[in-house]
């Protein structure tokens, strides 16, 4: 799936991804999508298209443990988040909910807002439509099982 790049800086925190005032309300996913990145980029939720990719600098998702910060991007149709690095709880949450989080310093650096990219998960490649190509490391074995099961809930069900 091809998508457009939304580019942000370092330390994009969970409050700007999904504001604290919404976190204790049980919101349906489509509603969550409407508030995604609200305090960072009000244009995002209005214009994001399924398959788009969020690209950011280091420590993406720092701050709170709120899972909606991963869920809102997923329900907005974001195909993957590519960053130089991720905050650890965000990384776990994204995997547990099935939002691919890809670590690539080169891609985080080189990709610009509006670039068109395609992600090949099997080959571990991010391909820009102008021919540039960036690799990302495969997931550790421990998390592969969760991703393959389609998220932690499905994975846990199998263990029961």
């Amino acid at each position, binding site marked *: 799936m091809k998508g457009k790049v939304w580019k942000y800086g370092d*330390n994009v*925190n*969970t*409050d*700007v991804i999904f*504001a*604290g*005032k919404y*976190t*204790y*309300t*049980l919101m349906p996913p489509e509603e969550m999508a409407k508030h995604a990145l*609200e*305090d*960072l980029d009000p244009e995002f939720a209005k214009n994001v298209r399924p398959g788009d990719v969020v690209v950011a600098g*280091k*420590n993406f998702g*720092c*701050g*709170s*443990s*709120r*899972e909606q910060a991963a869920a809102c991007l997923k329900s907005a149709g974001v195909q993957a988040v590519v960053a130089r*690095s*991720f*905050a*650890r*709880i965000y990384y*776990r*949450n994204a995997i*547990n*909910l099935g939002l691919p989080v890809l670590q690539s310093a080169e891609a985080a650096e080189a990709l610009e807002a509006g670039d068109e990219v395609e992600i090949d998960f099997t080959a571990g490649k991010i391909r820009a439509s102008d021919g540039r190509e960036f690799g990302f490391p495969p997931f*550790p*074995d*421990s*998390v592969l099982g969760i991703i393959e099961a389609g*998220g*932690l*809930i499905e*994975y*846990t*069900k199998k*263990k*029961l």
Partner: protein
Amino acid sequence: MGFTFSEKVLGAKAGRPVRAGDVVTVSPDYVLSHDNSSAIIKEFRKLGLLRVKRPEKIVIVLDHIVPASEEKYAQGHKSIREFVAEQGIEKFFDVHRGVCHQVFVEEGYARPGLLVVGSDSHTTSYGALGVFSAGIGRTETASIWAVDEIWLRVPNTIRIEFRGTFPSGVSAKDVALKLIGDGGADMADYRAVEFGGPAAAGFSIASRLVLCNMAAEMGAKAGYFHPDGVTREWLKGRTEENYEEIFSDPDATFEKTLSCDLSALVPQVACPHTVDNVKTVTEIEGTKIHQALIGTCTNGRLEDLEAAGLILRGRRVHKSVRCLVLPASQQVYIEASRRGLLTLFAEAGCLILNPGCGPCLGAHEGLMAAGEVTVSTANRNFRGRMGSRDSEIYLASPATVAASALAGAIADPRKALP
């Protein structure tokens, strides 16, 4: 080659020697959640199970939006109370009790050598008592309720060695902010932070809690102090349970060791909108404020209220400042009341809030309008966290916040001390 604290705690749980980088599947001693338990219950129900596996390991504290400020929150709280009754969860604390992280340590659940996880990022706090404790998400909390297991990667460790003594007007919050300002908000991402060195023994439990709480703002998985006499003293009367003190071996491998001289510190302030945007109080003195917040799980303990009280005693908060005092727990509230601190604050023109998270997460009680500024003792100053996205939050110690409340602008506490 010796083992680090994290390697030892997680190795003991895994039943085999482990090293940083290994992935272990372990069974935590406690799993904490708060108002977000209603969302966790929803995930748990998806698993199709009737009973949680180990109800005695579950700790639930209602603290985030207490008492419920809107019907939807009341509904959430109600669903949690019903679940707690249905599942026989005894470690449940209703809206009067305080912030989860303070309640957890007051109840004696944080004991050396334990492994605790919680669906709140500041679960790192319990490292103050020699616990390996880490924040996790909601879905994985539901999964632990079901199967009593979680995967964790054994973290690398950064050691920070303290020496010297705090100058007057400078406290644990200043050292936390200084470290984060120098190292950046991801200085310890995926890692554990060991707080040690010759001055560590001089840190009270309250101060250790500040550092371990703020370890989350360094991106750390866990932050801890080694247990010592101060730890044992705190646990006396709070728990009957046995515990095993765990220490890093002298020849353990640390990713790096930093040294920090407390004597050289001056009051620090984290400026909008990131915790690592740190300046000395002198650099931003005079910045106008509209609200001051003294409290939260970071700095809402007796020691913090005493520090603020020392500055506010017999004085009046600036007429254009709303000064909110938010004790971290009911126990803190009671003791502050006994010592006359609550009267002192009220007489100074402060507004005393009920124990809990209060305005810290921007859901109720003391939000800001566009263009307003708060100086707070909390741990986060992200854009929009306390109301309008066009408001600003500065973070500082209780002494700095109290001095600023008097001045109507960010002020140096060293000049305000009696």
